[in-house]
């Protein structure tokens, strides 16, 4: 099953890329996007594990579907907080990073 291995490695790489984005981004919107990349990378990894033995397994699929919807709702809450924070402080970054240059 080279196909599912390929997708699993892609998922693993997506988690790494997303994690890097989470660390390196300062703008909070970009952090939310990077966080979503981590989540979907894990979904791809899990989905590839479900497809590993040929027949697709419904249990990971069911978990991923609920996961996708929860990820969207978490992003909506996070974005709401980012906008509220930016309106209050006029800055899209966290306070402790304002001094860094």
């Amino acid at each position, binding site marked *: 099953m080279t*196909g599912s291995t390929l997708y699993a490695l892609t998922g*693993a790489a997506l988690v790494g890329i997303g994690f890097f*984005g989470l660390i390196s981004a300062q703008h909070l919107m970009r952090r939310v996007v990077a966080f979503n990349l981590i989540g979907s990378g894990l979904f791809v990894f899990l989905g590839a594990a479900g497809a*590993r033995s040929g027949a697709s*397994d419904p249990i990971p699929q*069911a978990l991923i579907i609920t996961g996708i919807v*929860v990820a969207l709702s978490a*992003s909506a809450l996070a974005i709401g907080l980012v*906008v509220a924070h930016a309106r209050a402080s006029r800055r899209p970054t966290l306070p402790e990073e304002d001094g860094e240059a």
Partner: protein
Amino acid sequence: MTLVLDLTLCALILAVALATVLGGGVFRAIVFFIVYGLLLSVAWVRLDAVDVALAEAAIGAGLTGVLFLSAFGKLARIGAEAEPPAARIRGFLPAALACAGLTGALAWAWFALPVPERPAPDLATALPRAGVENPVTAVLLNFRAWDTLLESIVLLAALIGVWMLARDEDWHDRFGLPQHVRPGGVMANFGRLLPPVGVLVGVYLVYVGADRPGGAFQGGTVLAAVGLVAALAGLLRPPRVTQIVWRMGLVAGPLVFLVAGIVGAILGAGFLTLPEPIAGSAIFVIEIALAISIAVTLAFLVIGPPEQGHRE
């Protein structure tokens, strides 16, 4: 040849993800993330997970784009959309190495862990008793009903969290920013043409969920996105927090789910276990209520808290 296809798709997904993270500018990251969601729904079809692909398509193509872009617009209007001048963090290399290590650990886990027997033998024997043909729906609404019930409550919690960000003076207003379009213009006509087809597709997905790919989650997200189109095009004015009908829509899914669970307990099958004779019809009822709740909750989440009177 299919391997070439998978390689191309995976390379494209990784390139788009890298562009999302490395490219400068918030807007570029958002657009690449939208592209990423579209590609991912193709990948789910390749992974033989059409149910997931349906949910990812409705969310990736419809809801996330509007969510991120409208937030970008709000940030731009207060001048907070630009990135701080310190584009690169100190310690770029350690961060990159740590993330490569994370990827390596996941890859190692993939090769090191034993390949389990799939689909699990327990599932194969239980499926005929589930009351539905689609195994994903059977897992979601019957075998792992606990997860799904709690998940629908998590959605409500997130929505309440978003509502708490509303200012007191906006609380009785309609959700989101005031929407207005040119009457008879392109956007208004798009908003009139799309909803009939969209509602049909959403209801169809909920209806066929028992036997074919589809179900409450996929249909609910499609209906939420259709509602969003209607609201953005000015066809439908968003409701208010205080309207009781919409609040009932929000809790209908979890409530019906709970009632079905208690009925299962009374009939002796155990809490949240659907007895075999009524499983099929119970799942159908739960699915309709859950689709309504998911559609209303996701649409409200994306359109945001009431801020009709908000002026920057």
